[in-house]
């Protein structure tokens, strides 16, 4: 310790570590008027809680309660709700056009019925575009938003594990995005399925399967991008490159690399029959190597568990320095 400041007063005790002499007698004898008695027993009715370890899931659910409203009414949600209006507008246009042209839609000569068009839209617009976009924009921001808003301090100075903050926010993301996506899909279903004479009632089980697939997709992409958000710099760029660069690229080639994508496992969950001999079916042929539903669900579950665990570890260990 080279610095040795001169306090210029006998009553000030130099606190440099090299000068740890006994305290000045005057200071030693001076008891601040507000001094707490030693060995004071905690006086609060909730004192028994003070020795308990905070449970992860219970803490996460409380963070979920706190975050859901914030997330649902954020500017990001408004923007993404507009994005989800896109497929509905397309469906509306298709429906109007179909009523004007009684012959229906033909793709390369084959007639496309409503349920097939619905299936294509679910795969191409939702699974391959909207769900990754939602995952990237929400998933990478689970902790970053609180850091940017400087509200993370309130959560990290509470008796809960930091990983519970991430988990609670992830659950809030999942609930928010499901609440955003499902109305859009429902509208799409009622607008598109009747085209070409498909029955709404008959196609209903596949709608439920599509809901399941979308929820699994949101959960998987959200977990992957939560990891990206907690571990990497520029998570938004990395997330977008992963979803719209890496995944489409490796899915086009044979080999094992495609197993490192979420989309590879999600395609096994597609239930719809697609129109044949069409440009779309040619695109879908690229995904001809499809795992079983069971394998997909197990792998997606493992992806969610591993990425969330790793993201939680990152949050536990990382120091968040807020900009002043």
């Amino acid at each position, binding site marked *: 310790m080279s610095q040795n400041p001169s306090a210029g007063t006998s009553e000030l005790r130099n606190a440099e570590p090299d000068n740890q002499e006994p305290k000045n007698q005057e*200071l030693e004898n001076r008891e601040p008027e507000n001094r707490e008695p030693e060995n004071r027993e905690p006086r609060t009715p909730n004192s028994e809680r003070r020795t308990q370890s905070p449970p992860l899931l219970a803490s996460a659910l409380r963070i979920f309660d706190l975050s859901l409203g914030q997330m649902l009414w954020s500017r990001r949600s408004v923007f993404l709700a507009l994005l989800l209006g896109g497929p509905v507008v397309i469906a509306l246009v298709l429906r109007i056009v179909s009523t004007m042209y009684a012959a229906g839609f033909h793709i390369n000569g084959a007639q496309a019925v409503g349920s097939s068009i619905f299936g294509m839209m679910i795969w191409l617009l939702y699974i391959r575009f909207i769900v990754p976009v939602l995952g990237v924009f929400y998933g990478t921001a689970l902790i970053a938003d609180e850091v940017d808003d400087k509200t993370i301090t309130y959560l990290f100075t509470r008796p809960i594990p930091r990983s519970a903050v991430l988990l609670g926010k992830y659950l809030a993301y999942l609930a928010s995005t499901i609440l955003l996506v499902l109305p859009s899909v429902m509208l799409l279903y009622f607008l598109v399925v009747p085209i070409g004479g498909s029955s709404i009632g008959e196609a209903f089980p596949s709608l439920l399967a599509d809901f399941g697939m979308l929820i699994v997709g949101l959960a998987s992409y959200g977990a992957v991008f939560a990891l990206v958000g907690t571990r990497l710099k520029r998570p938004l760029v990395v997330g977008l490159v992963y979803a719209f660069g890496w995944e489409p690229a490796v899915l086009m080639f044979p080999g094992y690399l495609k197993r490192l994508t979420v989309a590879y496992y999600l395609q096994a969950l597609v239930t719809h029959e697609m129109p044949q001999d069409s440009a779309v079916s040619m695109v879908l042929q690229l995904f001809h190597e499809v795992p079983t539903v069971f394998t997909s669900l197990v792998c997606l579950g493992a992806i969610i568990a591993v990425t969330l665990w790793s993201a939680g570890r990152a949050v536990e260990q990382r120091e968040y320095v807020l900009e002043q």
Partner: protein
Amino acid sequence: MTAIVAADHLSKWYGQVIGLNDVSVAVPPGITGLLGPNGAGKSTFMKLITGQLKPSKGSIHVLGVPIWGNPALYHRIGFCPEQDSFYERMTGHEWVTALVRLNGAGDQEAAAMASRAIEMVELTDAANKKIGAYSKGMRQRIKMAQALAHDPELLILDEPLSGMDPLARRRTIRMIKEWGRAGKSLLVSSHILHEIESMTANILLINQGRILAEGNVHQIRDLIDEHPHTVHIKADHVRTLAREFLADDDVLSLRLEEGAVVVQTARPDAFYARLTDLAASGEHGAIHEVTSPDDNLQAVFQYLVKS
């Protein structure tokens, strides 16, 4: 006597920048002021004490146990951070309740604890208003309510009086002293000696990442009195307020800015007392915010570190 905060050769650096340098200090129970100019290392020290940062070297114990990676300790600590950040769409009561629930309280218990804390900071009338509509003083008080709602043993307040109007400032100082008398330990940071002095005589003096001294405040305030003190006041009627100040012999200089008057005084104590009286009387309209730059303290620190 058991120290509430014990640092042992504690250092923290951010890359090449040193935030805190080899600090060893034991903070006794009671009210302690952490005093230093902006950039002195106060915030780094506060973040280490509250477990937001991990020591680069050395150790820090709070209430006898290491704080980093020990969330259970937050049952015993309440922290009021410096930043003016909230969930703006929530009401004060909703926000404090939600945070107290994170301490393990049930819904009804948390709501009752939040109500009690809001009552303690005298904000009951505004409890059901959105935080976004709060004044600066109300925002500071709701921050304090969330810190004390779970009845912690140790309250850590980072610049709690920052930007408050004179009446809110007086009320807050009174509350802090009451909490101290009620047996709580408090660590309060500030860059304004007069704030600290009005709460406690026990201070830690920090500058350039080191604890320079700890002890009784009166010797330091004599040094500070040798240097003029600058006060920045935002008010409704700054011109009439300025005329009022000009009649005061202790006012050394005065400058008008847009919606504010900047005063240099030789006797800060008397000036603050007069300002509080003026705010209470409402004679010259509302006084919204009183701040003080750290130039005053910086001059004293330069004197203190002079060999």
